[in-house]
């Protein structure tokens, strides 16, 4: 954990008022974690006083500080300096960097003197404290021109220029270090713990009382009807898990794909029970392998392992429109009696659902891809909108664990709803009465991200 480097008197001359600024330097996360609530209380009480204590600096040169940015992977350095009284709209600041204190400085950024303030920082208050409007802030990151190396000391200088004079700050140094913990996410951890506890309590209650009310979801009630219809007509049931994959954090489709595989298990159980045929074409090999396991287990659970066929799940192509063309062809040739479009979809949604509609199949879709939902709504008999897809497995199976989870999610939504209503009222009152503590209270909600 590091804060300031190279601010010793040997490297950077002591500047008037530095001690005031140093007192308000970046507050280390470790300390914040320990005095979280104390900071909140004192922050509320002292905010107006602190606000008045900020004074613009009339000294000749910018009093520059450099520090390692907290909670990052060691790829950026923060610079800050109090505003100068001589600043104007035409004046500019130029930030220069060097790898050696006495080496040549390379300009890395230039911006208007009336921009880049501490208030622009998006970090939460428990890491950054009260952000000031009278202190400039600039975050140095790697660009195409230069790359910040982790644990390497860099030297910085800021030059103020308003056309008539050019003022240079002292040279300061800092090194970017990787931080083990990102304290800005502390609130996320808090929410995780609170939400996890709510879920566990809800699951426990669901186990004790398995008859928890779940509102009717027509799209899921129709699953039974769709499978029954396919059985009567002697035609297959087509189930698509979408174009998603288990791609992790960068993949928006992960959760919908997981939900689609879980629903497939329930649908496969019904198909096995009725003795119908199931067809599951895939775009993603990993999803296909998971679905194979799901379907096999569903057939075993339904007591019909003998009717399970390995080619129920089959791979077509990883390419979006090659897959779409092949599934469209399959729909036209095999004419499934029931089509399920679950998971995450892109532009292929309408092509698939429209083709299915022309064959007269009963169609049930479910996705959280909001741009594709309109197409499913217009072409399918039933559509599970967004979270209904996640609720489907609990609704279909009525497993206490899943139903309890759903109940816990509802409680979480209720809390969020209250936060939004109370937060809006708080910020509105803060605006009307100009009460600082109301604005600070708003920050409680605002930084929950």
């Amino acid at each position: 954990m590091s804060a300031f480097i190279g601010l010793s008197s040997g490297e950077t001359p002591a500047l008037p008022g530095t001690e005031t600024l140093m007192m308000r330097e970046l507050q280390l996360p470790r300390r914040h974690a320990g005095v979280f609530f104390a900071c909140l209380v004192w922050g509320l009480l002292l905010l107006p006083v602190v606000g008045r204590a900020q004074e613009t600096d009339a000294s000749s040169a910018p009093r520059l500080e450099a520090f390692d940015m907290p909670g990052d992977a060691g790829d950026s350095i923060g610079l800050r300096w109090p505003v100068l009284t001589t600043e104007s709209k035409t004046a500019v600041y130029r930030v220069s960097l060097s790898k050696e204190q006495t080496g040549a400085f390379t300009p890395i950024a230039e911006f208007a003197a009336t921009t880049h303030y501490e208030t622009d920082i998006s970090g939460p208050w428990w890491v950054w404290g009260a952000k000031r409007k009278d202190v400039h802030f600039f975050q140095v990151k790697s660009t195409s021109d230069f790359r910040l190396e982790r644990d390497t000391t860099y030297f910085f200088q800021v030059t103020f220029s308003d056309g008539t004079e050019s003022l240079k700050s002292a040279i300061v140094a800092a090194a970017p270090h990787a931080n083990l913990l990102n304290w800005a996410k502390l609130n996320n951890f808090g929410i995780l713990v609170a939400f996890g506890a709510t879920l566990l309590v809800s699951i426990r209650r669901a186990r004790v009382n398995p008859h928890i009310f779940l509102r009717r979801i027509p799209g899921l009630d129709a699953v039974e009807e769709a499978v029954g219809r396919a059985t009567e007509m002697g035609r297959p049931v087509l189930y698509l898990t979408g174009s998603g994959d288990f791609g992790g954090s960068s993949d928006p489709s992960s959760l919908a794909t997981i939900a689609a595989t879980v629903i497939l298990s329930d649908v496969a159980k019904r198909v096995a029970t009725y003795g119908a045929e199931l067809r599951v074409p895939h775009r993603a090999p990993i999803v296909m392998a998971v679905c194979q396991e799901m379907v096999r287990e569903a057939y075993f659970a339904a007591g019909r392992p003998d009717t399970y066929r390995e080619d129920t799940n089959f791979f077509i192509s990883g390419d979006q429109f090659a897959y779409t063309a092949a599934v469209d062809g399959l729909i036209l040739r095999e004419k499934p009696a029931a089509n399920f479009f679950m998971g995450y979809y892109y532009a292929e949604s309408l092509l698939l659902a429209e083709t299915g509609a022309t064959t007269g199949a009963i169609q049930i879709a479910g996705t959280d891809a909001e741009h594709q939902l309109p197409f499913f709504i217009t072409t399918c008999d039933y559509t599970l909108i967004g979270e209904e897809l996640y609720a489907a497995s609990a609704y279909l199976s009525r497993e206490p664990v899943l139903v309890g989870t759903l109940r816990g999610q509802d409680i979480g939504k209720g809390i969020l709803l209250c936060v939004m209503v109370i937060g809006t009222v708080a910020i509105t009152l803060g605006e009307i009465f100009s009460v600082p503590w109301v604005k600070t209270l708003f920050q409680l909600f605002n930084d929950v991200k």
Partner: protein
Amino acid sequence: MSAEVVIGAWVAVGLSLCMYSFLYKDNPFFKFGEHVFVGVSVGYLLTITYYQVMTNKLYIPMTQQGKRWLLVPAFLGLLLLARFIPSIAWLSRISFAFLLGISSGLAIPRQISSFILKQVEGTLKPLVTVGDGGVAWMTWAGLNALLVLIGVVSVLFYFFFSLEHTGTVRRIARVGIYFLMVSFGAAFGYTVMARMSLLIGRFDELMLYASASYGYATPVLLVAMIVGLWWWERGQERKT
């Protein structure tokens, strides 16, 4: 115009028309286009995966950069292939469990942050505007904030699953459905416009290839396809 460009134009036009023939009905031209499309895409993706994953992300880092720890993901990947040997097929579940666990673990916090907490933050806006002239009660910004708040709250009510949708809850949820439908309508129009521009782009290319410099590729292939479809239909009729 070089021969390669002209041949490329003919192939592009031919395959485009094959796919568009689907608008008529399922036919041999569409089947041909579909199978070529699937075959080429699988072959292409296999090659890309081999070079980008097996070579660039595994072989080169291991042999040239000394990243021996990559043996762990490589081993997990190999376990997936155990599915082909029934006696040890269960080993593949280790990799699947890892994949599902890691993807859920990475996706859930991101979803919570992006789709819940960020949305909450965006909803928290003052309903009034304070300026030099004092408090302005009815402003567009305030009205917008109120509309967003009502929309978010009512839509959230719709997604309460363990709450019976009767009485007041039903009425609020109903308002939520209206908000959803308005947003879906807007998304529908927006996406259709985007698709139209794609269609125009395709037609633009077909018209370009209809010129003499490309050997009248579009009209020639279009006529050939119509004749072919007519011939195929006659064959179908004879069969029946």
